């Protein structure tokens, strides 16, 4: 083949038949490159030994049994919210309101703990908390769904704005129920009586959360993959026209799925208040509703991949925090490191979907470059 100067240098083609292990390898490579970039940056900017940095990252999550449990608890909560947004995402319903759906559920749980403490026995309070949180989350999901189904409103904006309403409501009730008076904060609810506190099982405060979320994860997997509802969700997501054609009631599926999404957020809220924190603040959900969007996407909406992705993100976050305290760097530095790592991981998605060929003089075949 005769060569010509104007031949394209870079050639991008879409991959076909991607093997299952391939995304894992690419993500792992991206993570390594990201850590390398972090190491170089740290070396240049602070002069610290990159290896000790890596050590601190790992130490942040695995350094002690307490740290491991905190990491597992954070992973479970992030996973729970990620699982909640996934059915909606598979339906191409861009629910970015998980933050609000979870927070309003936290409010419902806290309300039950405060308002029912003198009325009902402990077990009844817990049942009410669970029911009320799931209901609150579901209602927060239902409102945008109804508007989308009936009038075709934009669900992204709608769910986003519902977040602010939830935050404002919580801020209001924080003042109503403030304790001690004048502090503007709720503090630990029922600290003395522990009414509405979820039981500690196996001597581990966080074990219950991990088990509950694990069960939800398995259930969600089967629901999405093997149930009739799950199939309807996929069809609506891929083509509304086809859904009509095979007699699926699209409005019903949208509403039903968002009820489910909201209810699972509700469970997350219930666990956050009833088991983890026993308090209510406007920042209780801590951005998980948004991080969950990324987890769900990176895992390609597969519940089991989400376990790994959410754990990875939590480990990175805690590792970055550890670095900033240990080396006396401020919080912004750990944010930078997290940003670099996410950039590499998200960027690597491109190499999973596409193949890049570089043509070099003398090369007959394009070369694979990851």
């Amino acid at each position, binding site marked *: *083949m*005769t060569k010509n100067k104007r031949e*394209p240098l870079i050639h991008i*083609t879409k991959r*076909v038949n991607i093997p299952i292990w391939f995304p894992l390898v690419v993500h792992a490579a991206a993570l390594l490159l990201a850590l390398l970039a972090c190491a170089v940056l740290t070396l240049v900017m602070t002069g610290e030994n990159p290896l000790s940095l890596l050590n601190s990252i790992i130490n942040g999550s695995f350094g002690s049994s307490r740290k491991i449990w905190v990491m597992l608890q954070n992973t479970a909560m992030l996973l729970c919210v990620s699982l909640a947004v996934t059915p909606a995402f598979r339906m191409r319903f861009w629910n970015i309101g998980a933050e609000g759906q979870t927070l309003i559920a936290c409010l419902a749980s806290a309300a039950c703990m405060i308002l029912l403490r003198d009325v009902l026995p402990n077990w009844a309070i817990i049942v009410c908390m669970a029911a009320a949180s799931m209901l609150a989350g579901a209602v927060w999901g239902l409102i945008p769904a109804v508007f989308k189904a009936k009038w075709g409103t934009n669900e992204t904006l709608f769910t986003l704005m519902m977040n602010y309403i939830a935050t404002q409501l919580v801020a209001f009730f924080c003042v109503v129920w403030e304790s001690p008076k004048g502090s503007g904060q709720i503090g630990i609810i029922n600290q003395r009586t522990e009414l509405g506190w979820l039981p500690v099982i196996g001597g581990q405060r966080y074990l219950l959360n991990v088990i509950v979320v694990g069960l939800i994860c398995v259930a969600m997997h089967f629901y999405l993959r*093997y*149930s009739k509802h799950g199939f309807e969700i996929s069809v609506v997501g*891929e083509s509304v026209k086809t859904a009509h054609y*095979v007699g699926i009631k699209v409005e019903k599926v949208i509403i039903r799925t968002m009820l489910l999404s909201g209810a699972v957020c509700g469970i997350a809220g219930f666990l956050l208040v009833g088991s983890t924190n026993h308090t209510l603040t406007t920042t209780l959900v801590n951005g998980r509703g948004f991080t969950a969007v990324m987890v769900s996407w990176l895992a390609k909406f597969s519940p089991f991949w989400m376990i790994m992705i959410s754990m990875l993100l939590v480990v990175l976050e805690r590792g970055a925090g550890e670095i900033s305290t240990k080396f006396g760097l401020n919080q912004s530095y750990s944010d930078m490191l997290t940003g670099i790592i996410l950039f590499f991981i998200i960027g690597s998605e491109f190499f999973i979907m596409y193949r890049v060929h570089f043509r070099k003089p003398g090369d007959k075949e394009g070369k694979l470059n990851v």
Partner: protein
Amino acid sequence: MENSNSAVSLRNITKRFGATTANDHVTLDIRKGEILALLGENGSGKTTLMNMISGIYYPDEGQILINGKETVISSPKDAINLGIGMIHQHFKLVDVLTAAENIELGLGGKLNLKQTAKKIQEICSAYGFEVDPNQKVYDMSVSQKQTVEIVKVLYRGADILILDEPTAVLTPQETEKLFTVLRNMRDSGKAIVIITHKMHEVESISDRVAILRKGQYVGEKMTKDTNAQEMTNMMVGHTVALNIERPEPVSPKPRIEVKDLTVLDEEGIVKLDHVSFTAYSGEILGVAGISGCGQKELLEAIAGLQVTEPGSSISYITDDGQKEELIGKDPLEIQEMGVALSFVPEDRLGMGLVGSMDINDNMMLRSFRHGHTAFTDRKAPHEVAEQVVDELEVATPSLNTPVSRLSGGNVQKILVGREITTAPSVLLTAYAVRGLDINSSYTIYHLINEQKKQGVAVIYVGEDLDVLLELADRILVLCGGKVSGILPGRNAIKSQVGMMMTHMGGTKGDEK
């Protein structure tokens, strides 16, 4: 080789997409002053090959010579500069702009629409086109839009024209007009490549045919030295019987009775105007009409997917003569009564199938509600998928391949196959063979005939009049949403049907 005459020479062109080889060392000449018909089954690599000439794809191996000089075409812009113009199946025009504006669009320099219009007129008079430079695209018929596309590439100085299935959307009269223009262009020395599946068109328009099979170049023939049978055999690789059987309907009974069906579209424009007819069991009712004359709305109305105006009535008549009104029922209820719609919309995957799902799941679209548990039964659809793939010879790497990765013919086989396995009593099909190669088309005709023999009432919306005349027992001609007439299929004449498609009742003077 007579290089002096070659406009484009392809030498050992190979193009791979992942594991599939779309073109395998193809060597082919496109000559000046000649119309070349490029033939091949679906997925044989015709469009891929032409896309490489027009700069959309870049070949993995091989050389392209333009006017005898080796050339690199790395973008559509390169192709335009080399005088290569491709007219795609889907038009790429901006609706709200005029013909002249569309033609000028994308060209640099100062906008001088007057001059553009003048140049357009020159091109038109040279080859016999009719284009009003100031007409807006949204006011144009499909054939006018196509004309604008052709003028657009000529305006850019193309002297090598590639047309991908240009007649799929045209009436017989419009096709004839197009062919006249193409002949004029050939006579002025342009090189023309036409991709089509309609054999009688190949015979009437082309000088030479080149045949691809499974990405490989099989051979070429001068059109005058060959015939449809031989070309088909070369395309398919074995002998194919080229006749459509038409058994007499056995004891036809009224099955679907449509009365005064009126449908308005979203903008309130009348798409169907008091349409009335009866479809019988064991009979194929062909529906003819230029595209957009209400065929789609007619089938969708029967299937319960279309909002109808008050006064419309569609009844389903059971074997013992009981009538049941279909209007007001939802699509699911209508399906359960045995009305199957294997509607093939313009974008092929749009309605009947989900592109990203695999064959199993697409089969499941119809049956996923079966069973009393909350979970889907995956075994039954899998068996249906195996059966369809096996019986209709669907070419697919596996049952787990997303259907969007399959070629058009295979996609259609899956759709029609699935609809037939639901054992319908009414089969509605639209453009069932659009874009299908001859072998697959005959498979589909055969399938439809099998349904007819089993007593199914078939309503067949087709675009190839020759086929419609061979296949249908009766032909209903639509013209602007009205029934222009119903003819017996056995002695209908093509030109008469063609006239009825454009003028109510087939006579002139009834124009609006």
